[in-house]
């Protein structure tokens, strides 16, 4: 065992697996065996490294060499160069887009430099299907400590002292939630892990479950000890087959090792975990809806109080936390509240994981201390905007959040600052937009999502959001009036003010924040019937500039509807009655001969 001199860590997250990461692992094993290196070099499939933009990624230990966008065919070269010849395979190294230098060590990649990985500490580090690797990383030590050295009250105090707040969106203090549930008298209580990540564009919960499932199991057991529950339930999206698979393996291992079940570590504490599946409903992220769904009903939220901590699953006191919140728990026990307290800002302790996506260079999963600015995230970690375009906005908090602009870039990110800025933390989606994104369309996109996902129980969300969406549609079609803009705002405020659950209460945020920050774009759509970003199909037309066109026929060949005509080496022409405004010609043209008018 100890003979391994090197480890090859291959990212086994969903993103990288989609790009044949499993084949890469197979090829490595084969190639190493062929070269008789299989006794010296170990191949490990790990959870997500976070740097999905450059996936599949492979990291060589101990020198930290970081290979990006590896294909199964590259394996022979890596083995040959890195292990036989002893030098990094340059062509697969990460290239810093700022200076075009290649970077060997993962540590020197900008994407990782400012990150502090607590919740993601084991993702991309251990083999998630091997409990021993987790134990080697102090796994289950926190549970052991809580069970043997602390009373539940002391353990809760520790969580309270750490200042940890719920990472699912609302930011409710975790320790306080546990304390409330503990104080409710009932012989049967439940610990629920909310893994129904529904925010489109956020995938941290999935990554944690795929990369470090034991940390969730351990944290749930600790929570069970604290609140006096011996049953845990993980409510997980059925769309996450890999996370489910790894969680099941982890549960079985934990049972096998006696870390779940009866009389854990000889302390008399019993705890077991079952899996419940979501079935595609964003609203089930709301805890009352989630509980109804776990009970086999429609996932409709109910009015709180009673809170789940008093009457939850099967009417019993239930503590619901999301995956990322739980992932923080074992570390807090191992390293202490004080240590955790030093990270982050005064009211928002610790770190937050963000799914950085959209028009940034480095799409991926990142974890930064609370208080990091948006600028650091987008420009340092994210590597700035793709294709040298101009930054326009960033949407945090998914469909519940708002669009923040240039003026918010230096705002330190924490729960309260984001709310002050008109957005929210949400589950941690962070979508970056550039000058080509029409903000009215973005607001419409989010509204369409909410519309699809509204449960339909309360009037403002069921009908109000539909009307909001229709107003936005009218505007993007150039049929809006200035009165519609007032209506948009008024209706948004009523929906916020009167909706039953968090989904409806926050659904107008994308509209309100874009109205606040990009009013001029709305006005352009209404008054001059133009879309400044050139995105609203009804308001734009693609035309060929005859002078610029070289007649290369690239547009002609790529047009999906045959709307482009023209002889080779002669200026081409777009037939407007056939054009579906898909923008392919515009993207393909190398001579900037196609313009949007």
């Amino acid at each position, binding site marked *: 065992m100890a003979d391994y001199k090197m480890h090859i860590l291959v990212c086994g997250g969903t993103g990288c697996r989609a*790009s044949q990461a499993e084949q890469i692992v197979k090829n490595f094993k084969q190639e190493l065996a062929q070269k008789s290196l299989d006794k010296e070099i170990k191949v490990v499939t790990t959870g997500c490294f976070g740097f999905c933009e450059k996936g599949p990624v492979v990291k060589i230990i101990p020198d930290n060499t970081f290979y990006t966008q590896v294909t199964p065919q590259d394996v022979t070269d890596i083995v040959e160069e890195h292990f036989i010849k002893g030098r990094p395979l340059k062509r697969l190294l990460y290239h810093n887009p700022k200076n075009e230098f290649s970077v060997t060590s993962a540590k020197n990649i900008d994407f990782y430099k400012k990150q502090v990985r607590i919740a993601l500490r084991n993702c991309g580090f251990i083999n998630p299907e091997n409990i021993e690797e987790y134990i080697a990383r102090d796994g289950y030590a926190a549970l052991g400590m809580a069970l043997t050295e602390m009373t539940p009250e002391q353990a809760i105090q520790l969580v309270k002292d750490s200042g940890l707040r719920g990472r699912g969106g609302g930011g409710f203090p975790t320790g306080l939630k546990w304390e409330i549930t503990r104080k409710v008298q009932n012989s049967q209580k439940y610990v629920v892990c909310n893994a129904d990540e529904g925010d489109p564009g956020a995938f941290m919960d999935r990554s944690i479950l795929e990369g470090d499932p034991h940390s969730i199991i351990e944290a749930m057991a600790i929570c069970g000890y604290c609140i006096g529950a011996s049953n845990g339930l993980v409510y997980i999206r059925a769309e996450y087959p890999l996370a489910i698979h790894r969680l099941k393996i982890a549960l079985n291992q934990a049972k096998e090792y006696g870390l779940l079940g009866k009389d854990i570590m000889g302390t008399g504490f019993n705890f077991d975990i079952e899996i419940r599946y979501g079935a595609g409903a964003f609203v089930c992220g709301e805890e009352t809806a989630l509980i109804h769904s776990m009970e*086999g009903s429609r996932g409709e939220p109910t009015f709180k109080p009673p809170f789940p901590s008093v009457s939850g699953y099967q009417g019993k006191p239930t503590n619901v936390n999301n995956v990322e919140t739980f992932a923080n728990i074992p570390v807090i026990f191992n390293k202490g509240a004080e240590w955790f307290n030093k990270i982050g800002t005064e009211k928002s302790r610790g770190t937050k994981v963000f799914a950085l996506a959209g028009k940034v260079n480095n799409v991926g999963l990142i974890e930064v201390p609370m208080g990091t600015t948006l600028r650091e995230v987008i420009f340092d970690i994210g590597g700035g905007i793709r294709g040298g375009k101009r930054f326009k906005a960033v949407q945090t908090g998914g469909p519940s959040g708002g669009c923040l602009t240039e003026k918010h870039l230096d705002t330190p990110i924490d729960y309260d600052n984001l709310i002050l800025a008109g957005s929210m933390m949400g589950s941690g989606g962070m979508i970056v937009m550039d000058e080509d994104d029409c903000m009215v369309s973005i607001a419409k996109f989010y509204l369409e999502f909410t519309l699809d996902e509204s449960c339909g129980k309360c009037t403002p969300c069921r009908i109000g959001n539909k009307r909001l969406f229709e107003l936005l549609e009218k505007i993007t079609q150039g049929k809006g009036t200035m009165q519609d803009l007032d209506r948009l705002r008024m209706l948004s405020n009523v929906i916020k003010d009167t909706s039953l659950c968090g989904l409806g209460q926050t659904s107008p945020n994308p509209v309100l924040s874009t109205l606040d920050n990009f009013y001029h774009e709305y006005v352009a759509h209404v008054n001059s019937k133009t879309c400044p970003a050139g995105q609203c199909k009804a308001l734009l037309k693609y035309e060929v500039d005859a002078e610029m066109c070289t007649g290369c026929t690239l547009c002609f060949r790529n047009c999906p509807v045959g709307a482009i005509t023209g002889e080779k080496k002669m200026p081409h022409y777009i037939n407007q009655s056939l054009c579906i405004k898909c923008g392919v010609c515009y993207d393909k043209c190398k001579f900037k001969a196609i313009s949007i008018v």
Partner: protein
Amino acid sequence: MPKIKLSEYATTTIKEVCASFNHNEGELINVLHQVQHKLGYLPAEVQELVAIELNIPVAKVYGVVTFYSFFTMLPQGENPISVCMGTACYVRGAEQVLDEFRRQLKIDVGETSADGKFSLNALRCVGACGLAPVVMVGDRVHGRVSPSDVKKILAECKDGCLTHN
């Protein structure tokens, strides 16, 4: 006595699944997951039997089936195509890709082509945001898809079908 027609296979499958969950009505969603997994979809007849096996009104089963987007009452095509419409994919042009699929297949989202070869769905974030826009055909993920790739993806599927036969 209303009579409902159901194949023997479906009947046995449903009864087995329900029994494996102890006919517990709280497990309705898990039951539906498994039944759909095994039978492909959840037509009315199937829901009727699930209701009887779990001793709950069929109205409740139908209410649940129509609430969750994962459940379908229509058979899926041989090649279920899902276009990710998560935000990351959306801002990188997923809508145009979806439009192109619609155009090429002449079906709308949620429908299956007349020959049963393709069905088209929009889904929310498969978490492969680094590959945006993403299209899934069955379990296979296609990353960084542009509208002009659509034809190729469909052709590949058709080839796949031919070789399968």
